[in-house]
């Protein structure tokens, strides 16, 4: 009997805020990446205290050919009154890997998201004039932008349209709390671990009409 070779998903590094306020956008971005057939990766994946966080991030960036960087969070932290530099820093690591990482890294492609046109140019003028996606803090816009970006790199893969992804996401959001109420799933729907969220998104999509490669 011939053995069907299973393809593994290309990986996308997601560099975005993990704050509660940003969660609706983050969840929508992660769901869209899965729906487009890519494996999302981000700093929330592992809490291995044995490896420094920067080391884990560098390994992750090294293994991802594509990346999404949301640089819209520019407000000062409410508690400390200080700015947060993690997102621009990780964006810089990705660009550095592409520029200096040799042949295995120079095909990397990144996509930058910001909240509004022209504002980002004031806080990160080095990327002014580049193709930046504006989400206006709306998950639907973020889904449309991410899908558009990934479509350009999907080769022969047929991607669901943005409206289908949005409708699937709305349904997924309404079903996750119902799933958490089942006796075999003892989790807080509002506080799912990143990997469990991804797993549920994949399972859901496979049950609403997406097939396996």
């Amino acid at each position, binding site marked *: 009997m011939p053995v069907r070779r299973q393809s593994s998903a290309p990986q996308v590094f997601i560099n975005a805020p993990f704050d509660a306020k940003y969660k609706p956008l983050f969840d929508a971005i992660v769901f869209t990446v899965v729906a487009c057939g890519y494996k999302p990766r981000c700093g929330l994946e592992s809490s291995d205290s044995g490896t420094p966080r920067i080391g884990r991030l560098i390994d992750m960036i090294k293994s991802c050919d594509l990346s999404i960087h949301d640089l819209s969070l520019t407000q000062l932290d409410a508690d400390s009154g200080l700015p947060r530099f993690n997102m621009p820093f990780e964006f810089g690591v990705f660009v550095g890997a592409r520029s200096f990482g040799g042949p295995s890294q120079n095909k990397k492609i990144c996509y930058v998201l910001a909240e509004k046109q022209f504002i980002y140019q004031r806080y990160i003028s080095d990327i002014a004039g580049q193709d930046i996606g504006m989400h206006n803090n709306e998950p639907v816009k973020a889904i449309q932008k991410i899908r558009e970006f990934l479509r350009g790199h999907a080769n022969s893969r047929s991607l669901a349209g943005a409206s289908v992804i949005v409708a699937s996401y709305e349904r997924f959001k309404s079903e996750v709390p119902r799933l958490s109420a089942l006796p075999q799933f003892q989790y807080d729907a509002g506080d799912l671990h990143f990997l469990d969220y991804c797993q549920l998104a994949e399972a859901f999509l496979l*049950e609403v009409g997406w097939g*396996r490669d």
Partner: protein
Amino acid sequence: MSKVSSAAKKRVKASPASSGSREKYTLPRMQFRGAKIKLTEARKAFRALHAQSA
């Protein structure tokens, strides 16, 4: 905020994998190592949920 078209909503609602229709979109294997929820269990649970709502 953009509106989801009702046609798109209907397409999602009317397309469970169990319908036997040919899948238009495909997913490669993702393998989320470290996830506590198992893919097969989650699929089974979603299937049961969809059967309930059908």
